[in-house]
């Protein structure tokens, strides 16, 4: 019986070849990642000593990201940043200060090494899986990695999602993930690793796979992973790897807890209705619902592919009167690329409010919704209060659906505008 990718990576980092799902181990992460957050990093920094650790071992394995409370709105916010900068300097830990949302910056900076194992407190770090890296969010338990040379884990089972065919026009990776929730529910991968496979992978971009791995927690998964491959659409060269480890592929006879087949051609634009990320439904059932505001960004969506999809629809058009659209590229590198290729100009011309990368739009610290407002969002979550007032409604969708809805001020199928755009350029 063969092994899954997760089993192989955890076998390497625990020095226990041949281990299987269910085995318990102390795994030594290749990378320990965390964004600065009150109650998390400040507590780790403060308490390490009382757990017998004066400093972290191998500080270059660690990375801290300042992406929350950016830019500072209060002196207390900025003081936290000041303290974080000082700690990183003192301990020789790399700091990524306001250069983008950490989960994306980690990939850009070389932490998404195929075959590597990373831990964080936040589960959206699973998106390093798009590169063949195993990355797990451990909540407060990540502190173990700050004070000893490993994290205690039970090796999870894996669920294999085999992708076939290719998605139609106007269908984005976000729709594919929401389609999975719609068809298979909010817990089909509970406590398991969501492993994507199949020839359909090569019809998707690495950016799209970052979306589909980054949202894995909403299927109950502890993380997600994709076997590394060179055939991915629009594949960009991998950033320089910060460690040399063998890339891993699943064995053909690996044992999975379940296998799911998805025909990408069947996927249609989707929307996730409030108040739960489980409420995925085909968009066509909700077309026409009035919306007041939009947020294009987050660690899930807000990359070049998303900005390009929005620009293709918004080019030469204006937002619906009174509609407020916030566009927040996921990283400075993405923002610079979108500025250079004219995408940001198109979005600004259409009436979008474009801001530098920050996590704060996704959680309602900036661009806060008022009671009764309805927003379309490419953020991670639509639970009540996520973007401000607890009785504001959040509809999650792809960047393309968001852009089309911003034009009309109501939920709108993006394929209409894409067909027009194609006609215009023909």
């Amino acid at each position, binding site marked *: 019986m063969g092994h899954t990718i997760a089993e192989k990576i955890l076998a390497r980092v625990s020095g226990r070849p041949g281990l299987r799902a269910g085995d318990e181990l102390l795994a030594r992460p290749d990378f320990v990642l965390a964004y600065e957050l009150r109650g998390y990093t400040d507590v780790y920094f403060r308490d390490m000593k009382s*757990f017998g650790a004066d400093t972290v071992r191998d500080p270059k394995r660690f990375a801290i990201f300042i992406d929350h409370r950016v830019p500072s709105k209060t002196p207390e916010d900025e003081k936290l940043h000041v303290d974080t900068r000082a700690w990183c300097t003192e301990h020789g830990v790399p700091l990524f200060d306001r250069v983008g949302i950490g989960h994306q910056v980690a990939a850009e900076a070389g932490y998404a090494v195929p075959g590597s194992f990373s831990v964080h407190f936040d589960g959206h770090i699973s998106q390093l899986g798009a590169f063949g890296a195993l990355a797990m969010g451990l909540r407060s338990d990540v*502190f173990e990695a700050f*004070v*000893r040379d490993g994290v205690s884990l039970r090796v999870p089972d894996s669920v294999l999602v085999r992708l076939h065919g290719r998605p139609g026009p106007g269908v984005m990776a976000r729709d594919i993930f929401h389609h999975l929730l719609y068809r298979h529910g909010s*817990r089909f991968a509970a406590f398991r690793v969501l492993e994507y496979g199949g020839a359909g992978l090569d019809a998707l971009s690495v950016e799209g796979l970052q979306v589909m791995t980054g949202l894995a927690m909403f299927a109950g998964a502890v993380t997600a992973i994709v076997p590394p491959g060179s055939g991915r659409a629009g594949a960009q060269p991998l950033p320089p790897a910060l460690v040399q480890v063998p890339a891993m592929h699943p064995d053909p006879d690996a044992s999975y807890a379940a296998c799911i087949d998805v025909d990408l051609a069947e996927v249609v634009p989707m929307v996730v209705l409030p*108040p739960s990320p489980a409420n995925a439904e085909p968009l066509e059932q909700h077309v026409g619902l009035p919306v007041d505001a939009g947020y294009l960004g987050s660690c899930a969506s807000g990359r070049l592919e998303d900005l390009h999809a929005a620009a293709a629809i918004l080019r030469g058009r204006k937002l619906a009167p009174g509609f407020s659209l916030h566009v927040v590229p996921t990283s400075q590198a993405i923002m610079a690329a979108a500025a250079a290729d004219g995408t940001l100009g198109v979005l600004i011309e259409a009436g979008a409010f474009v801001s530098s990368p920050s996590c704060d739009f996704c959680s309602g610290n900036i661009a806060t919704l008022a009671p009764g407002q309805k927003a379309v969002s490419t953020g991670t979550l639509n639970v009540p209060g*996520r973007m401000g007032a607890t009785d504001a409604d959040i509809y999650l969708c792809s960047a393309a659906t968001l852009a089309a809805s911003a034009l009309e001020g109501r939920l709108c199928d993006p394929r209409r505008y894409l067909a027009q755009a194609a006609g215009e350029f023909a």
Partner: protein
Amino acid sequence: MTLPAISGRVAYIFPDDYDVDQIVGVKNIKIQDVDQLAELALEKLGPAFRERVRPGDVLVAGANFGYGHPHFPAMKAMRKLGIRAVLAESFFPVYWRGEISNGFPQIACAGITVLARPGDAIEIDFAACRVRLPALGRELSFPPYARSELAMLEAGGFRAWLKQSIAAEQQEKHR
């Protein structure tokens, strides 16, 4: 290695995919005062819960309990009210990890919502991994915890466990 048995009553039954932040209300998620959180939970879950709940009780829930973006105040409130454990058909992993880390027993007990009713007496035997409903004469089993999970629960939470675990490691080295 095991936890002491729990003998209590079912204080409340939650539906599938329940977002625990609703217990105190999302608006109140930043409140730190546990007495205030406990009062909010009593208010939000209604008069039947307020009248029924007493120290030593447990909660029962459907599948995927804790789904969404779970914060800690809900279960801080429940512990303040004397709730000793949560039994659910299944859990959302993010919630599970957080509460096990807080040293709060969570029990993945398939079939529990079919049998249990509010007010029912319930006995949890951690050594045998069994749940008993004496009034019905029925028993259900649950899967054993991972070693580190059980050790965290025994120690009273992640941080206490980590301290013990590191101390044991040091002793081992010096032997």
